[in-house]
Structures are given as structure tokens and as C-alpha cells.
């Protein structure tokens, strides 16, 4: 039994960490957070060069052929740095293509997605609906030689810059829509998390292509998304604990640093106790996804519910430890607070996934 990372995996995390330390300083994060686009092309290019965009893509298509656990380890580090942008959507769309695409679709897209030449995202949620395949209502209609897609999706990440969309359609399948085609109407939604902007995308008879294995791939893609959000939450929450500890070691009140006060110390200890053991929960969920199919769905649901709940509470505690300054726009803590809100709500709230986990356990 080996419940630990391989040397390669530790190296992968170190590499991403060092890359972000160098290329993603707080100043850049802040500029992006306050800026109009939520996307940093340089950063994205750098991630592509590190091979992070093709991590799970088969080697013959230019990827590294690794597993979800490896992707989740990267997501953790990105979460820790509040790294912005299209990583989540791109990764899930890429997985959808890998698992559900035809050979032609894969040949056309995977090399470009792995290299970063093209950017993908996915569109699942509809207004008043849910994230689950059974809840999708967007309709595919035959039109001449091809298919046309009609429907409206909300909270589509990075839609403004995506080259290709993987879209959930009625019946639980997945369709591919290229940005270059007609019938796409993209409108920004004012979302809470400025590091991961979302849009409303109306498909109005857009040219579409069905993924032949979409129905099988769709729930797997959802589960992969749950694990990646859990990993992001772990990274973000751990960073919050670091920020709070750092602040407590420096902020002076009543003549001493506030880290001297037992109330503050215990608050920080409780925060650490809430998140640190959960590291292994997302690892296990990712591992189960890769190797233990019987446990895969349930662990993804529990990990997502548990870790995003912890992240939300810890982000809140972190603001409190910072006092008034933590409540300001200028203080970076708010960036993680809002990422916590995103991680918590995106792909379904903890309550939704706990109920799923209960059902999956036969309770």
C-alpha cells in the first residue's frame, strides 16, 4: 500500500509552484482581478509550455498521458496561487474529448488543446436547471448535412476567449461547437469570482458536432470537475491558513503580535485542523476516479462537498483574523474568499452532493 505521491508527482507540484512564484506574483494577480478580462495570456502560454494543458492527453496527441490525480495536484497549486482563467473549463473539455470524442474529433482538437494553440471550455448549466446530464435541455437538430444546436447555457467559464465549446445536450450527450461558426451569442455575467469569469452563452442554431461517446463521458467529466474543484479548494484554503498565520505573526495589537493571543492561536489551529487532513480526501477521490470505479462517483461528491465547505469557512475565518483590513477590496484575502464561493457553488453546492453521496451509499 502506498498512499503518497510519487517523486514525479512531487516534482510536478514543485515545478508548478516555482513557475507561479516567478510568473504569478501578487501584483499580477491583483491587476487581473481588477482588470477587464480575467485572462492572462502570458501565464496561459507559460502553463502550456510546462505541459499542464495536455497533462491527461494521450502521448500520441502531444500530451503526457497522466491521470486525474496529476491534474488535481496541479489544480491544488493553481488554487493556492488563485491562478486565474480557463484551466478548469479547458481541462474538462479536453477530458470530454478524450473520453467521448471520435478519432477524427480527437485528431483535430487534442493536439491543439494540449499545446495551448486552441482553448476549450464547457457549457453545462441552464437557467433554472442543474449540472447533471439528466437536467440538460439544449437541443440538437439535423440541418442538411450537419447538426444545429439551440439552447442557452449559463456560468460558462472563459467563454469569451474559448475556441471550442463542449456543450451538454438534451438526453445527456455532449456536442462540440466551434466559436468560428455562426449562432453563438456570448454575454458576460457579473460573477463573484473575478479570477474565473463566466458568461451566458446562447446557441441559436449553432453548427454542432456530436461526441459519439458523449453520454458515457458526461458523468465522468462532471466527476472530474468535482475532484478538480476539491483540489482547488484545498490549495486555496491552505493558502488562506498561511495568510492568516503570517498576518498573526506580524500584526501588533496591545503591544504584541496578535499570534500571542490564545483566542487567535486556537482559531488558527482550528482552521488548520479543518483543512489539513482533507488533503488526503481529494487525493483519494482522484485515485478512486483513476482506479477504483466503484467508489469514484461517491468520493468525488464527498470530496467536493467537504473541501469546498471547509474552504468557504476558512476564507471567512481568514478575513476575521485580518480584521477590518481583511474586509477591504485592497486586501488580497477577498480574492480567495470569492474563489471559495465559486468552488462551493460551481457544479453544485455541498448539500446537493451530500444528498447524491447518501443515495450512492444506499442510505
Amino acid at each position: 500500500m502506498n498512499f503518497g505521491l510519487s517523486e514525479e508527482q512531487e516534482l510536478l507540484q514543485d515545478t508548478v509552484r516555482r513557475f507561479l512564484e516567478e510568473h504569478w506574483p501578487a501584483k499580477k494577480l491583483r491587476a487581473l482581478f481588477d482588470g477587464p478580462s480575467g485572462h492572462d495570456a502570458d501565464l496561459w502560454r507559460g502553463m502550456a509550455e510546462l505541459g499542464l494543458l495536455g497533462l491527461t492527453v494521450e502521448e500520441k496527441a502531444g500530451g503526457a498521458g497522466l491521470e486525474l490525480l496529476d491534474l488535481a495536484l496541479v489544480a491544488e497549486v493553481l488554487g493556492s496561487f488563485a491562478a486565474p482563467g480557463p484551466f478548469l473549463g479547458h481541462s474538462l473539455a479536453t477530458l470530454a474529448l478524450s473520453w467521448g470524442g471520435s478519432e477524427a474529433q480527437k485528431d483535430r482538437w487534442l493536439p491543439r488543446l494540449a499545446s495551448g494553440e486552441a482553448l476549450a471550455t464547457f457549457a453545462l448549466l441552464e437557467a433554472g436547471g442543474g449540472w447533471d446530464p439528466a437536467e440538460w435541455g439544449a437541443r440538437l437538430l439535423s440541418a442538411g448535412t450537419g447538426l444545429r444546436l439551440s439552447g442557452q447555457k449559463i456560468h460558462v467559464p472563459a467563454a469569451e476567449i474559448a475556441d471550442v465549446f463542449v456543450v451538454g445536450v438534451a438526453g445527456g450527450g455532449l456536442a462540440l461547437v466551434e466559436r468560428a461558426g455562426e449562432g453563438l451569442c456570448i454575454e458576460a455575467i457579473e460573477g463573484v469570482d473575478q479570477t474565473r469569469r463566466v458568461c451566458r452563452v446562447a446557441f441559436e442554431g449553432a453548427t454542432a458536432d456530436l461526441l459519439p461517446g458523449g453520454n458515457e463521458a458526461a458523468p465522468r467529466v462532471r466527476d472530474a470537475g468535482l475532484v478538480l474543484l476539491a483540489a482547488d479548494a484545498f490549495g486555496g484554503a491552505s493558502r488562506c491558513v498561511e495568510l492568516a498565520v503570517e498576518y498573526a505573526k506580524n500584526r501588533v495589537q496591545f503591544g504584541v503580535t496578535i499570534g500571542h493571543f490564545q483566542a487567535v492561536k486556537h482559531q488558527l489551529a482550528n482552521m488548520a485542523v479543518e483543512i489539513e487532513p482533507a488533503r488526503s480526501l481529494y487525493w483519494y477521490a482522484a485515485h478512486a476516479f483513476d482506479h477504483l470505479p466503484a467508489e469514484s462517483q461517491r468520493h468525488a461528491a464527498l470530496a467536493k462537498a467537504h473541501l469546498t465547505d471547509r474552504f468557504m469557512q476558512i476564507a471567512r475565518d481568514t478575513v476575521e483574523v485580518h480584521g477590518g483590513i481583511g474586509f477591504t477590496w485592497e486586501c488580497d484575502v477577498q480574492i480567495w474568499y470569492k474563489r471559495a464561493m465559486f468552488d462551493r457553488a460551481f457544479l453544485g453546492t455541498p448539500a446537493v452532493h451530500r444528498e447524491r453521496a447518501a443515495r450512492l451509499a444506499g442510505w
Partner: protein
Amino acid sequence: MDLRYSREYEEYRREVREFLKGHWPPSGEAAQGSQAEQAARFRALAIQRGYVARSIPAAYGGSEQPPDVLKAVIIAEEFGRARAPADVRGIGASMLVPTLLEHGREDQKLRFIPPTIRGEMQWCQGYSEPGSGSDLASLKTRAELIDGEWVVNGQKIWTSGAQIAHYMFCLCRTEPGAPKHAGISYLLIDMKSPGVEVRPLRQMTGTADFNEVFLTNVRIPADHIVGKRGEGWTVSRSTLKHERNMIGDAAGSRVLFEGLVRLARETKRNGKRAIDDSDVRQQLAALEGYVLSHQYSGYRQLTLAARGKDAGIAGMMNKLTSTNIGHSVARLALDLLGDEGLLAPTNEARGIRLLPRGHAGWITQNMWSLGVAIAGGSANIQRNVIAERGLGLPRDFAAQREGSR
């Protein structure tokens, strides 16, 4: 125990209603002039009748009534219903005026109280500084007496209303050699003085409900000090207590809770109305236990006040209870919002204690529930106060190290 008002008070309520019917909204001559003029005219009348500025001596423009909490509540209710100009709100009337009455010189009272209670003079508060949050007494803004004027230098933060205030009441360090708490004075600063710069301070909600105030060689008259030099800490203490009570308002918790129940009716969980979900019902009913306790404890404190008794430890808990409830509401609301939890907070200014508008308003409430927990003394400071003054436990080590505070 009797939750109705006694006959005497019901009679008083009728009297107030009649007065309001006769005078507000104004008609005939009284309806002339600007809104502000109409309000001033009405307020003068209401002061005459003893409905406004009740606790303020007549010498300073008040109506000098014997204290009667129940009458005060009746006036608030009836004036509120008629939307008539009642007691001026804000930090000037609630904090500066009581302070002047207790510690001010006669000329200060005569000069500042009447325009403040008439609503003509606005105030802001200069206590907090970037370096001194919970530890207010560690403030660094200096004032030196040079050529018969105070010369003030420093920075204040969390100053609501600084853009519109005429004056700031402000704590400054005037005795650099003195022990921490003994070196502070309570000064009044004209906000139009050269060297006063107000910069809006944006919160995580995106709006700017506070300010930073930079004071650079601001010169104010030597007599704009309340109390003696070095006594500013004592002078300011009673007002801080006021503020805590203001924030701990139980009616606000009730309104918030009712909003939450409506949200549970409007949202869905696992395919049915959220309010039909046993988990949501249990959480709501458990929360209502706290909300009702808070509300009824407020009634009880009101009754004790009316009887001239101290509320004791219960009075120290209002803010903490209120922020605890705000946090629980925020958490459950986020659950109920589901996917709408991805939305940005709405750009309502003054989010504190307002009922959220629309679902995205609950995101704003979520963040403000955190802001409220921090403002006016952190939860940890509240707990210290309850433990030390309420339960009689010993002082903090840190506080002991420091001598007094």
C-alpha cells in the same frame, strides 16, 4: 408580564398620532419652502411638544423630557409610520451629543449641540487607524499645540460619512511622554480645514461605504478639545458603548430571518422547494430559536431600562448574538442560493442591516455579515468584555502587561 402597552401609553400614542395627523405631511403655510426647510419647521414643533431631542436640555435646543423608554419607542413607531422627521440619526446625535453633554464645556454645548440635533451639522468619527483596530488606544495620530492651535497629523480609517461631514470628533495623541491611555485627547476637527483629505475605502463587496481620512498639518483652534488634555480615552468610552448597542439591533435580525424564510420558499433543493427539505426546515427552526431569543431579550432589556434597571450581562451580548445570527443566515442563504451563489454582490451601498434585494443581494449580505462581525470591536474583544465584565474573570495577560486600558 404584559406585552400590550398600558392605558397611559396607549393614550400617549393617540396624542402622538393626532399631532402627526395635524402636522405631517405639512400643508398650507407649513408646506412652503424646500424639503429641508419643511423638515426643520416640523422638527422645531416636535421639539416643543417633547417628541424629538427628548433627552437634550432645552438650553441646547432639546425638549428636555424625563427619560421614558416606552414613550421613545412609541414615538419612533408612530413617526416611522408617518414617515415624519424624527430624531436626527447618525453618529453626531448618537455619539457626539451625549459625549458633549457629559464632558463638554458650556460654550461647546451651545455651539455644537443645537445644529447637530436639528440635522444641520453632520459628524464623522475619527477613532480607528490602520495600525490600531481592536487595540484602539495604540493610535498614533498626533496633535501638538503650536501658537495657540492644535496641529494634527495622522491617518484615520473606517470613517463613514467623511465626505459629507462638517466636523469629525477625533482621538489624537497629545502627550507623547504619557502612558498609552493617558496621552490621548478628544478633538473636534472642521472637515473643511486645509490638510484634511478624504479617500473612499472600497470593501470586498465592491462599494465604498467607508473612507480613509488623511490629516496633514491640520490646524484647529486650541479650544476644540472636549475634556482635558490626556483625558480623551475616558471621554470616548461612553460613546463606544452606544455604538455597540446600535449595531446589535434585534429587529434587524428578525427582518433578515424572515427574508431567509422567503428565500427558502423561492429556491429549490434536490428538485423540490427548499423549504420542504427537512435539513432546511431544521436549520431554519434552529436559527429561529436564536432570533426569537435575541428579539425577546431586547424587549426585556427595554423593560429593564424603562424601570431604570441595568440589563447586566444581557446588554453585553447583543452585538455578538447579532453577528452570530448574521453568520448563520449568511451560511444558510449561500446554501439556498445554489448556482446563484456564483453571482457578484449587488452594488447596494450601506449594506449593513439592510434586507437583501434580489438573490444576489444575499451575496452582499454574506459579505456584510463578515464586515459587521469585524466592525465596532471584533468578536474576540466582545468575548473578552463578556468574560471580564460580565462573568468576572481575570483580565488578559496582554492587558495586564499594559497596565490599564
